[in-house]
């Protein structure tokens, strides 16, 4: 088993096995949803059959980006927005590895948005876990691409005039093979989803709506984490398989959660090898993806 590198000699909690306990307490505020999601990530890793040596966690910058620093696995805390391209290199150079990207909504979908859509398009075999706390927590609560229309942040003091992204719909449109959204309160679903995403070959995306009481809640009448969690409890509706375009986040009515996409498509490396082994003819007579897949299935 793994090195209990420089950590407390005896575990206090079931999660301690995967925690860098010598860095606990973590920096996250009381009630912050990042800790909840981080716990789910650790549970999913423990439940998976994947050897711990083969798992890497890559984060960008932000409160969520600090996840990489607390997990006692190969872990990389990169630059703001660039976790996905870093993880792409890591995965392509070591295809047997299972690479998880865990980062914030701003990191993955504002500054890192371009990388997100292209990694999904290429179907790079990554598990992308996005903690969506509707703002930039780390820098004190500014507008994010997820901030609901009208919500207050430090840079939208009168309410946001921006229309937010529906991340799940974006991921699906770009070709992600697994797309799910849960709230931090759906903790077992989150764990299952991360586990499924890790086992899925291809670009998987799990969005978790999470409380940021300090930066977001405070400015939006949800000062306590509980307020937002209760809000989720009241408003979230599970709709598996619904088209992500329909899975809207309407804070005035309901928040649609569930597993929206679970499909097959060759990964970047599958296609790379097929192309270089000349398994497909010259364009435009290249076999369609579905044919490629069928071929793969019969071989397997």
């Amino acid at each position, binding site marked *: 088993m793994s090195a209990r590198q420089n950590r407390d000699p*005896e*575990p*206090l*909690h*079931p*999660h*301690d*096995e995967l*925690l860098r306990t010598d860095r*606990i*307490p*973590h920096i*996250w*505020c*009381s*009630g*912050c*949803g*990042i*800790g*909840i999601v*981080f*716990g*789910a990530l650790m*549970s999913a890793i423990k439940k998976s059959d994947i050897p711990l040596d083969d798992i890497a966690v890559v984060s960008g910058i932000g409160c969520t980006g600090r996840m990489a620093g607390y997990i006692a696995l190969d872990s990389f805390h990169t630059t703001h927005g660039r976790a996905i391209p870093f993880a792409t290199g890591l995965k392509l150079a070591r295809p047997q590895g299972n690479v998880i990207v865990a980062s914030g909504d701003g990191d993955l979908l504002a500054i890192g948005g371009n990388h997100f859509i292209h990694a999904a398009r290429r179907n790079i075999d990554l598990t992308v876990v996005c903690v969506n706390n509707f703002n930039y927590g780390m820098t004190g609560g500014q507008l994010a691409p997820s901030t609901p229309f009208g919500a207050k942040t430090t840079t939208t003091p009168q309410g946001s005039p921006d229309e937010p992204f529906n991340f799940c719909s974006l991921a699906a449109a770009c070709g992600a093979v697994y797309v799910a959204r849960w709230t*931090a*309160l759906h*903790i*077992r679903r989150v*764990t299952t989803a991360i586990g499924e995403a890790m086992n899925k070959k291809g670009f998987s995306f799990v969005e978790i709506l999470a409380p940021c009481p300090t930066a977001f809640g405070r400015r939006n009448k949800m000062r*306590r*984490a*509980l307020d937002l*969690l*209760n809000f989720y409890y009241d408003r979230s509706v599970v709709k598996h398989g619904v088209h992500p375009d329909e899975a809207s986040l309407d804070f005035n009515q309901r928040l649609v959660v569930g597993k929206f996409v679970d499909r097959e498509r060759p990964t970047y490396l599958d296609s790379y090898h097929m192309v270089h082994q000349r398994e497909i003819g010259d364009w435009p007579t290249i076999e369609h993806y579905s044919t490629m897949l069928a071929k793969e299935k019969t071989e397997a």
Partner: protein
Amino acid sequence: MKYWRKPLDLGTIEVTRGIVRVIEGRCKGCEICVNFCSRGVLRMSDKFNRKGYHFPETIPGRECVNCRFCEAICPEFAIYSVETNGLA
């Protein structure tokens, strides 16, 4: 794994089906566990931990069913439960 030993800062209350344990020093007092325990087993203690937060304790007479929801949701990895096999 060895969770049966009893670290000094663990508050232990035994009930029939599960024991919930709190690593008091880790708790940041968010009250999430208290609010979402399906059995209403927990309440916030009047005591403060060394970080100055109140932490949860069990309500005497309430039974923990070892559902481990508190363990899963605690953002601080400060609470967990273990099965008691009916031992009280």
